[in-house]
């Protein structure tokens, strides 16, 4: 009993002391620059939060409708289709984009390199409808690539491959540029040392360069996947059907009205936020070696 009183007193004393210290430190370390930056950045985050809050208020007022829409097979199927098509596009990007990013990172500046870099960036600077048109004209049934693929039974128009290829086209700069930055950050000296120790160019890439760029690979993949699943105009040109989530929201907006489309959109926001938050958390320590002191 006596002990309790003493420890309680000590605890209270400790809390008071630390509170006083905190107040003193707060007075001493007011960094107005950081506070200013936080306010400016906070405004930007605030707009997004406000927009979501606005939607959430309306949706949470009628949870039954939200649950009904969110659990409908059409919405679940569309979300799964969108996520899978995005993942397929990213897988293709990893396979084809990684070598391109490496070549761009390691080649010396030249006019040819500048042209290739500009071509990689084209999907970034084009209106999405133009990007969609480009994909459509190339992969339509009579297109330069659509026709030969059609002959071996692979159709793109209003088909899953069409969705994947449109997503791949618009998301490619996000992956390639991030990956290239990652490769550029790996010192060439490391590759040189690996080569002199007996590793071939590919072994060096596989055992040294790629593991050290993993963090950028994940970042690029997440960015590209996010860009891919959010695409609308680029996809509808070649594959209005099957409905990816953005097409479904547009379709619902034009046929069922705002309430249903808003419920689908809110569901997508919640799921996307959860998935992206998880991915970021999972890859937090990935590829970090230098700061494990």
């Amino acid at each position, binding site marked *: 009993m006596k002990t309790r009183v003493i420890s309680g007193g000590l605890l209270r004393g400790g809390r008071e002391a630390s509170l006083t210290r905190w107040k003193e430190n707060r007075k001493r370390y007011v960094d107005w620059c950081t506070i200013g930056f936080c306010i400016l950045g906070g405004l930007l985050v605030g707009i997004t939060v406000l927009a979501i809050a606005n939607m959430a208020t309306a949706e949470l007022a009628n949870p039954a409708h939200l649950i009904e829409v969110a659990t409908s097979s059409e919405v679940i199927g569309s979300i799964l289709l969108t996520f899978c098509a995005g993942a397929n596009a990213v897988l293709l990007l990893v396979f084809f984009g990684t070598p391109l990013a490496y070549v761009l990172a390691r080649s*010396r500046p030249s006019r040819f390199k500048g042209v290739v870099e500009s071509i990689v960036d084209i999907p970034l600077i084009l209106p999405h409808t133009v990007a969609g048109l480009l994909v459509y004209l190339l992969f339509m049934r009579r297109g330069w690539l659509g026709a030969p693929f059609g002959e071996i039974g692979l159709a793109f128009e209003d088909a899953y491959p069409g969705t994947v290829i449109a997503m791949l086209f618009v998301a490619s700069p996000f992956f390639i540029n991030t990956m290239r930055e990652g490769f550029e950050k790996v*010192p060439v*000296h*490391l590759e*040189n*040392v*690996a*080569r*002199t*120790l*007996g*590793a*071939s160019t590919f*072994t060096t890439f596989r*055992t*040294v360069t790629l*593991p*050290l760029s993993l963090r950028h690979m994940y970042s690029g993949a997440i960015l590209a996947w996010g860009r891919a699943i959010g695409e609308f105009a680029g996809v509808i040109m070649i594959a209005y059907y099957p409905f990816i989530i953005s097409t479904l929201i547009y379709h619902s907006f034009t046929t069922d009205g705002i309430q249903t489309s808003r419920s689908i959109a809110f569901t997508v926001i919640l799921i996307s936020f959860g998935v992206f938050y998880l991915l970021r958390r999972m890859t937090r320590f990935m*590829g970090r*070696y*230098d*700061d*494990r*002191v």
Partner: protein
Amino acid sequence: MIAFDRVSLALGSFRLKDVSLAIGKGDYYFIVGPSGAGKTVLLEAIAGLHRPERGRILLRDKEITALPPEKRGVALVYQDYSLFPNMTVADNVSYGLWVRGMQKGEAQREVAGLLERFGISHLADRYPGTLSGGEQQRAALARAVAVKPDILLLDEPLSALDPVTQEKFIDDLRRLHREEGLTIVQVSHSRREAHLLATRVAVIIDGTLVDEGEAEVVLNTPKSREVASFVGIENILDGTVTANEDGHATVDAGGRTFEAVTEATAGEEVTLCIRADDVVLAVGDGRRSSARNTMAGTVVSVAENGPVAEVKVDAGAELTAVLTRRSVRDLSLVPETPVTLSVKATAIHVIRSSSSARGSGR
């Protein structure tokens, strides 16, 4: 063992021009030169990391100009150590063995032996980011030695180390060279390292090999004024030979007369190189001495550096002498102190500007 035959290569705006050199088995070969001279490019060319535009590279008289780095039997240690940050120290050391297909058990034994030898066994499971500069250096050296290279290439390996670690590492390198009979090529801009370790030296300035040969010869009797300046000759004076009797020349350098041993003839323009170690100072009028060059002067400055002091003397021309700090104290040398300065004629190296051949004098 390895030879460059008129090798030229371009890297951006930098050019390595017509480099010819020969590195023998067991040499401790130093490539010295100022920053940006092309030392590292030359080292990387030996490793096969740059393809020459012109010329040939020969290994044991066999042309290897187009041979990729992994097939040359060389190992490279960079200034920044370049340990793979995604691998532990043990994995770094075993990397070369692994890519060469050594069995896991054998590689583990080999690595354990190397870690023990370099005193880093306790660091086996650590990542490079957690090591000190000296520890990283030893790990990088162990990794390079693991593949038993024919030639070990070192790119300024001591420049990022503190003086105490530098001394230890110099001992390690000396032992490695002596005990293993390893051929080592080291890039450095430190004359001190070259004096301590090199058996042969190449001086490269602005992409051109300006001098090459036995370390003692290149460092003490440089071929040109720029090499003399780079290899650390403290007193370099331009002058004209006024007379020469049986190889004993009198040289007028900025109004001061020096006697030196050279074949240079009267009227010939020469450059005199005098090591500060060879300059003797006496206070007052000076005594009779066998030194052929004795002149009065005044102390300009005294800069202490460790156990020695660098004393600059205005004797018509400004000359530098290196004395022990005790001598400075005993002679009470301070700026404005009148002194008598003497240099033996045989201590002066004479560079003859009319000839590219190495001059005589020492």
